[in-house]
C-alpha cells in the first residue's frame, strides 16, 4: 500500500431542510471526524444519519452551513469531481452487473482517466487486499456470493485511494455470520489503510464494534452524544442515549474487548503417540482448569479434544473422538467469541495465535466471571484496541 492518505471531516452547522418543512432533516450539525478514524452515525430510522452522511459527497445538498474535507469546503467543488475523491459504499452494493469484477473495481480510476495497465494493476492489488481470488476478477457480479460482492463494493470504493470513505449500512443486507466476518475484515483492513470513514448504521452493536467514535443521533438530525464507544457505554449523556444503547451495557462492553484481553485457561495438551498415562496424570493434577486434554500437532496447533475413550488406548490416537468445535483467535472480539461458544453449544474453545498455535482456552465461565466482576462495571476505560496487521 501507499502512504495512508486521509483527511479530517468537519461539519460546521450543516443543515438540511427539505422543501418548506419546518423541522430540518439535519439541524446545525457540528462534528469533527479526525483523519484516519471511523465515525459511526447511529440512530433510529428517520434521524437524519444518512442525510448527514450524504451531504459530504453532495448526493444530498445541504441548505445551510458547511462541511470541510481537510481544509476545503465541499461547496467549492464540482459534485462529480468531489465524489471521485470520496469512497462510497451502499447497502445494496450497487455493483455494475454488466462489468467484470476488475472493471467494477476500476470504475473510479477509469473516470479519473488512469491508463488501462494502471487500472488493472490496482484492481489486482485490491482483490488481494480484500482477500479474493484474483481469478474472480474476470467474473461478473452475479457470479459472486453476497459477501464477496460486498467486499468488491469496498474495494471499488478504495480504488482511487480516497481521502474519505462513506459507508451507508454497508453490511446491513448480509446474513449475520457473514456480516460479522465482513466487519472483522474491514477493521483489519482499516488498521492498514487508515481512512477517515463515516459509517451509518441503525445497529448500536455494530456501531460499538466498528466506531472509533460514535455520534448518536435522534429525529431532526440532532447529535445527542458524540463519544468513544467506551464513554458511550459507561456514561450515556442522557436518557435517550441510555435507552438507545440498551440495558445490557455490560454485555455490550464485550464488544470492546478482544479475547487476548482476558486471562485464558490452560488446557492439558497431548501429542499423537504420547503415552496415555502421561496425559491422564496431567488431568489428575489439582490445578487443572480444563477437564479434557487437547490434542495438538508438532506445531502446537489444536487437532481435537480427547475423550475418556481415546485415553483407554496405550498411546494417544491420531484421530480424537470429539470434534474440535469452534477455534477462536486472540484478536477475536469477545462478544463474537461468546456468540461462537453459545452457537456451538460448547463450554470451551481453544484460542490460537496468528500462526494457529494454541494460546489458551476460553470458556463461558471465564466470560460470566468477568461480567460479574467489578472490573466490568468500573468506569475505567477498558482496553479498546484495534487489531493491527
Amino acid at each position, binding site marked *: 500500500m501507499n502512504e495512508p492518505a486521509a483527511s479530517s471531516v468537519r461539519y460546521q452547522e450543516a443543515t438540511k431542510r427539505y422543501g418548506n418543512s419546518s423541522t430540518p432533516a439535519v439541524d446545525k450539525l457540528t462534528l469533527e471526524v479526525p483523519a484516519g478514524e471511523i465515525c459511526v452515525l447511529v440512530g433510529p430510522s428517520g434521524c437524519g444519519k444518512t442525510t448527514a452522511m450524504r451531504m459530504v459527497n453532495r*448526493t444530498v445538498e445541504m441548505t445551510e452551513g458547511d462541511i470541510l474535507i481537510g481544509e476545503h469546503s465541499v461547496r467549492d467543488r464540482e459534485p462529480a469531481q468531489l465524489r471521485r475523491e470520496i469512497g462510497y459504499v451502499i447497502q445494496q452494493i450497487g455493483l455494475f*452487473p*454488466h462489468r467484470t469484477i476488475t472493471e467494477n473495481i476500476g470504475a473510479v480510476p477509469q473516470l479519473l482517466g488512469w491508463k488501462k495497465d494502471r487500472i488493472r494493476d490496482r484492481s489486482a492489488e485490491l482483490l488481494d487486499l480484500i482477500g479474493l481470488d484474483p481469478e474472480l476478477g474476470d467474473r*461478473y457480479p452475479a457470479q459472486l456470493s453476497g459477501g464477496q460482492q460486498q467486499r468488491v463494493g469496498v474495494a471499488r470504493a478504495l480504488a482511487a485511494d480516497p481521502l474519505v470513505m462513506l459507508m451507508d449500512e454497508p453490511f446491513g443486507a448480509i446474513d449475520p455470520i457473514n456480516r460479522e466476518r465482513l466487519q472483522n475484515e474491514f477493521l483489519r483492513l482499516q488498521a492498514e489503510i487508515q481512512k477517515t470513514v463515516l459509517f451509518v448504521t441503525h445497529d448500536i452493536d455494530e456501531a460499538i464494534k466498528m466506531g472509533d467514535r460514535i455520534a448518536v443521533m435522534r429525529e431532526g438530525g440532532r447529535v445527542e452524544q458524540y463519544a468513544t464507544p467506551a464513554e458511550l457505554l459507561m456514561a450515556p449523556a442522557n436518557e435517550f442515549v441510555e435507552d438507545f444503547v440498551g440495558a445490557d451495557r455490560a454485555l455490550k462492553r464485550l464488544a470492546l474487548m478482544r479475547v487476548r484481553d482476558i486471562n485464558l485457561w490452560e488446557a492439558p495438551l497431548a501429542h499423537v503417540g504420547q503415552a496415555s498415562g502421561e496425559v491422564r496424570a496431567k488431568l489428575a493434577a489439582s490445578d487443572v482448569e480444563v477437564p479434557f486434554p487437547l490434542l495438538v500437532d508438532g506445531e502446537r496447533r489444536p487437532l481435537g479434544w480427547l475423550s475418556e475413550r481415546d485415553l483407554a488406548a496405550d498411546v494417544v490416537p491420531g484421530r480424537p473422538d470429539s470434534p474440535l468445535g469452534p477455534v477462536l483467535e486472540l484478536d477475536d472480539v469477545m462478544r463474537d467469541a461468546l456468540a461462537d461458544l453459545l452457537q456451538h453449544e460448547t463450554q470451551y474453545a481453544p484460542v490460537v495465535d496468528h500462526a494457529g498455535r494454541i494460546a489458551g482456552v476460553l470458556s463461558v465461565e471465564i466470560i460470566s466471571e468477568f461480567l460479574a466482576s467489578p472490573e466490568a462495571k468500573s468506569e475505567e476505560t477498558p482496553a479498546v484496541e484495534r487489531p493491527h496487521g
Partner: protein
Amino acid sequence: MGSPLLLAASGQVGGDFFKERTSDTLPCQAKPNEPFCFDWAKENIDRFGTPTVQHLELVVISVLIGFAIAFALALFAHRSTWLQAPLLAVTGILYTIPSIAFFFLLLPVTGIGKDTAIVALAAYTLQIIYRNTMLGLHNVPDSAKEAARGMGYTDRQILWRVELPLAIPEIVAGLRVAIVSTVAIATLAVFIGGGGLGTQIYGGGNLTFPTSVFIALAIVVLMAMAFHLGLLLAQRYLTPWRNARAI
C-alpha cells in the same frame, strides 16, 4: 382494392407477368388447382431477386429510421418524465392505424413509391422500439445508478455507461419484434408502388399465381427468421454478462 394505375406505377408487376402466365409453355401453370408448380418455380426463380433486394431495403431503412427516432424519443422521455405518457399515446395511435389506410393517407404527402412505404413502416416500429427502450431503462437497478452517482459519474456517463448497456436486452428484443413485423408488413408496400416481395404475392391487388405466392412467402419467412436470429446472436455478443453462469 388496388387500382390499375397503382399497379402500373409500381413497375414491378408488368404486363409480362400476366402474359407469361397465360402462355402455354409450362403444363402445370394452366391448371388453376395445382398447389405448387415446380417447373414454373425452376424457370422463374430469378424474378424474385430484385423484389427480395427491394424488400430488404424497405425493411432495413425503415427500421433504422424508426430506431433512430424511437431511441431519441426514449432518451428525451427518460430525462423529462412528463413526456412519457404522451409519447406512448402518440406512438400507440400510429401503431393502431391499419397499414393499408396508413399508406393511402400518406399518398398525398409522400406520393407513390417506396418513400411512402418507408414512412409508414418506420412509424409502425416506433411504438415497439420506444416502449422497449423505456422498459430497458426502467429495469436498470436503482442501486447501480445510485452507486454510479455517488462515485462521481455525471448524468450523461450514467446514461451511456450504465443505463443503456444494461437496457440492451430489452432494446434488442424490441428491435427483433419491430424488424420481424416490418418484414411482414412490407409485403403491402406494393399497393402504393413501393415494390418488394408483395409484387410477387398480390401482383397489384389480386392474389397472383399460388406458386409465386408460396415462394414469396417462403422468402419473407426466411428473411424474418434471419433477422431474428442475427439480432439474437448480436444480443448475446453485446451482453456477455447475461450468459455468464454461476460457478
